């Protein structure tokens, strides 16, 4: 079943196919400057570069929670595509985010998402957001997604 929606087996090919979701296909990912930096069998890593226009508290310079939510939602969605091995219609059912420590201003935020369980209809994803040290995440998240085809 090889078609335009099937992801290739090799990592470079998977990177290239998934990267379009951060350039052309998803305007808001592009507007935030999100970039896909790594893919695995069911894991995606996406970076949100620091930008002045994403600041939520002008006195601390810390990035707004909303931008972090978008980073997590996007990374989790890509992890599901990787686990599925293909691009299939997908909707986010829910997303829970715990803010573990304040993000530091001026530093890129990196989200690593893992689709750890996939059923016929529902995908379960967990994600961590860090600023260089995955052992000290600034946020952890849990999301569920539903496949909308059939």
């Amino acid at each position, binding site marked *: 079943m090889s078609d335009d929606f099937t992801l290739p087996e090799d990592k470079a090919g998977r990177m290239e196919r998934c990267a379009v979701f951060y350039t052309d296909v*998803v305007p*808001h990912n592009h507007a935030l400057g999100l970039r896909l930096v790594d893919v695995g069998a069911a894991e995606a890593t996406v970076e949100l570069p620091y930008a002045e*226009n*994403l600041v*939520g508290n002008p*006195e601390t310079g810390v990035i707004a*929670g909303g931008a972090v*939510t*978008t980073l997590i*939602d996007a990374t989790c969605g890509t992890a599901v595509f990787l686990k599925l091995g293909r691009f299939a219609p997908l909707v986010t059912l829910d997303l829970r985010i715990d803010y573990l420590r304040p993000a530091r201003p001026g530093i890129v935020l990196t989200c690593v998402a893992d689709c750890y369980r996939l059923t016929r209809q529902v995908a379960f994803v967990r994600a961590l957001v860090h600023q260089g040290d995955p052992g000290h995440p600034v946020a952890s998240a849990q999301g569920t997604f539903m496949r909308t085809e059939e």
Partner: protein
Amino acid sequence: MSDSTTPPLAELVRQVRKTREYKRLTDAIPYTRFMGIGVENLAGEMLCRMAFNPRNIGNSLLPALHGGTLGALLESAAVFELLLQTNTERVPKVISLTVDFLRSGKPQDTFAKAFITRQGRRVANVRVDAWQDDRTRPIASAHALFLLSEP
């Protein structure tokens, strides 16, 4: 980081609570300005509005708003409710946020209303609904916990 014409955020919040010039506050926050998120008084009720902008699209085919933008609107509505409808002295810090995505967001303005379910001395619980044409058919809802002060 604020320039000489902008008062410190706490002072600005105190002023806006009285004057209801909400735009002064939302303009002072780069992200809400970037997202087109504003606070309005409609029929005596304080609401948040996220103006439609093509760059908030997440799915170009449908088209539909990015789920992250709805999360941003819901969280902003909760923060502004706490800042403007209570006497909290500092910007509430979000502890956790849970968003349920109920319907796809059409490419148009989206509204949100936050309800403070409980406000303690240190923690506030807030529930938020977002809708477009029909308030009885929300497109997303959230509940969030905020830390209001250091011990």
